C-alpha cells in the first residue's frame, strides 16, 4: 500500500495522481493500480507519467468505474501499486521525436526526461490541451495541436526514431506515414489486462511474429512488427 500525496483534476476528466515512494522505472513502463477491495475485479494498468525522488506520478482519464474510483481518492488515502511492468521504450541515440495523442501523452513525459539530447515533442488533443507546460523543459521543439491533426506538423525525415502513444488510429497513421522512410517507430499499445505479468494470455495479440503479450512483450512494439489489420487494441 502506498500513500497518495495529491490527486488533482488538471483538465476536464483528466487527473494527475502523485504517490509517495521511491521507484525505479524504465520509460514506457506501467503499474497495475488498485484502490478498492473486490469491485471492480481487475486492477487497472496506468503508465508512469513521471518519477521524482520521493514520489511517482500517474496521469489518467476518467472513462469508467475504475478511473472514477481513482478520481475520488484524496491526499492521505492508500493505493496499491504493483510494478513496474512491461518492456518500456528502448533507449536509442539519434534524432528523436515523441508523438502523443490525448491521454496517450502520459508516458511521454517521463520518456522525454530520459534523453540527454532533448527530443522534439508533438502533442495532439481533441478539444483541450493539458500538462503541456511540464513537457517544455524536456523538449527541443514542443508542438501542441488542439482539434487538428498533430501529425500534419511533423517532417518525418528529420528523425531517426519516433516514440508514439495515443489512439490506435493515430499510431497506425504514424506507422503508415513513416513506411519506407529510414525512421524506426516505437508504438505503445493498450489492451485490457487481467494479470499484467504475462500469466493469463488475456492481453495476447497477433503480431507479425506470432502472438505477443501486451503486458510483458509490450506495451511497446516496433511499428513494423505490429499486425495492423488485426484489432490490436481491445
Amino acid at each position: 500500500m502506498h500513500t497518495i500525496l495529491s490527486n488533482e483534476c488538471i483538465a476536464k476528466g483528466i487527473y494527475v495522481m502523485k504517490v509517495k515512494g521511491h521507484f525505479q522505472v524504465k520509460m514506457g513502463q506501467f503499474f497495475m493500480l488498485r484502490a478498492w477491495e473486490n469491485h471492480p475485479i481487475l486492477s487497472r494498468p496506468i503508465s508512469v507519467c513521471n518519477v521524482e525522488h520521493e514520489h511517482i506520478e500517474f496521469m489518467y482519464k476518467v472513462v469508467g468505474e475504475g478511473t472514477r474510483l481513482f478520481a475520488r481518492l484524496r491526499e492521505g488515502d492508500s493505493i496499491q501499486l504493483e510494478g513496474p511492468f512491461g518492456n518500456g521504450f528502448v533507449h536509442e541515440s539519434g534524432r528523436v521525436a515523441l508523438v502523443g495523442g490525448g491521454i496517450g501523452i502520459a508516458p511521454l513525459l517521463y520518456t522525454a526526461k530520459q534523453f540527454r539530447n532533448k527530443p522534439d515533442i508533438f502533442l495532439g488533443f481533441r478539444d483541450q490541451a493539458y500538462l503541456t507546460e511540464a513537457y517544455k523543459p524536456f523538449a527541443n521543439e514542443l508542438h501542441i495541436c488542439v482539434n487538428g491533426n498533430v501529425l500534419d506538423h511533423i517532417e518525418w525525415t528529420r528523425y531517426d526514431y519516433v516514440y508514439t502513444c495515443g489512439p490506435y488510429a493515430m499510431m497506425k497513421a504514424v506507422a503508415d506515414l513513416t513506411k519506407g522512410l529510414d525512421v524506426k517507430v516505437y508504438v505503445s499499445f493498450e489492451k485490457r489486462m487481467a494479470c499484467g505479468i504475462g500469466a493469463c494470455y488475456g492481453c495476447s495479440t497477433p503480431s507479425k511474429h506470432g502472438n505477443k503479450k501486451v503486458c510483458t512483450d509490450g506495451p511497446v512494439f516496433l511499428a513494423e512488427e505490429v499486425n495492423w489489420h488485426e484489432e490490436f487494441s481491445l
Partner: protein
Amino acid sequence: MKNLACEVAGIRFQNPIVMASGTFGFGKEYAKMYDINKLGGISCKGLTLHPRKGNGGARLMETSGGMLNSIGLENPGIDAFLREEMKFWETIEPVKIANLGGSNIEEYVLGAMKITQDAEERRKQNRRAVDMIELNISCPNVKEGGVAFGIKTEVAREVVREVRQMTSLPLAVKLSPNAENIVHMAVMCEEEGAEAISLVNTFTGMKIDIYQRTSVFKNMYAGLSGPAIKPIALRMVHEVAKQVEVPVMGMGGIASASDVIEFIMAGASVVQIGTYNFMNLRAGEELLAGINSYMELENIQSLDEIRGII
C-alpha cells in the same frame, strides 16, 4: 505455523492452496512476486497436443463480481511445455498438475501419453516431474469440442475412460458447471477410475456491446469466473463431495481465506485459486497467512477436523 498438509490421489500437498489452470501461467511470472514454493500445488495453463493461438478479438471483460474470458486455450503445446517450462518446474516444490485440453479424443489421448512418458523418464532420473494430469473437459472457449465434452455425462465418459487407460499418472477430471448433472458427471469419473475431481470450470456467459450491436466476444459466449460464481460453485462442490469417495479439488470465486475454509467445510480436499490471482498478485501468500490465523483462532490442528462437516 499450523500443519496444513492435505492429500489428493495419494499425493501430498503441503497445504490446500493450488493455483488454478489458466490464471497462474506456468508459475514463473508469480515467482517474481512471492515465494511460490510455499504453495500446495500449481495447475498449469491448459495444454493441448499442438500449440494454439487462442481466440481473436477481445479476450477479457469485467462483470459485476466476476470476469468473462475468451482466451481460447492459447498455449505453446505439450512439446514446448515439456521442453521449456519443465525446466522451471523441475526447480519448484509445489505439486505439479498438467492441465490437459483438447478438441477431440485423439488429442486428449496423445497429449496424456506425451505427458506421462516425460514424467516417467524424469522420475527415472530422479528429477521432479508432472505429478498429476487434470483433464479439462470443460473449456467453454474452444469451439470444436471442449465444452461439449463437459455437458453430457455419457459423452464425457469416453474421454475419461480412454485417457485413464493411457496414463500411469494420477488423473483428476475437471468438471464444467454447465454440465447437465454435475453429480452424475462426478460419479461417472469415479466409476471410470479418476482419482480426483476438480470443479468448477467457468460458467458459460455472454456480454453484448449495445453500441456495436454484437457480442463482445468473437466466439459469442465466454467463461465467467470470480467471486460472482462462488455461491454456485460452493453448492456444487458440496453436492459432489457428498456423492463421491474420491477427493475434490474445489474452486470458483475464492477470494479470501474464509472462502477457502468454506470450500473445505463443504468437502473439498484442496482448493484452487483462479481469478483471485489477478485481483491480488500475492494471493497464495496471503491466503496461507489467513488460513493460519483462522486455525489459530478456532484452535484447529488439522483441516481434517473441518473438512466436509457441513
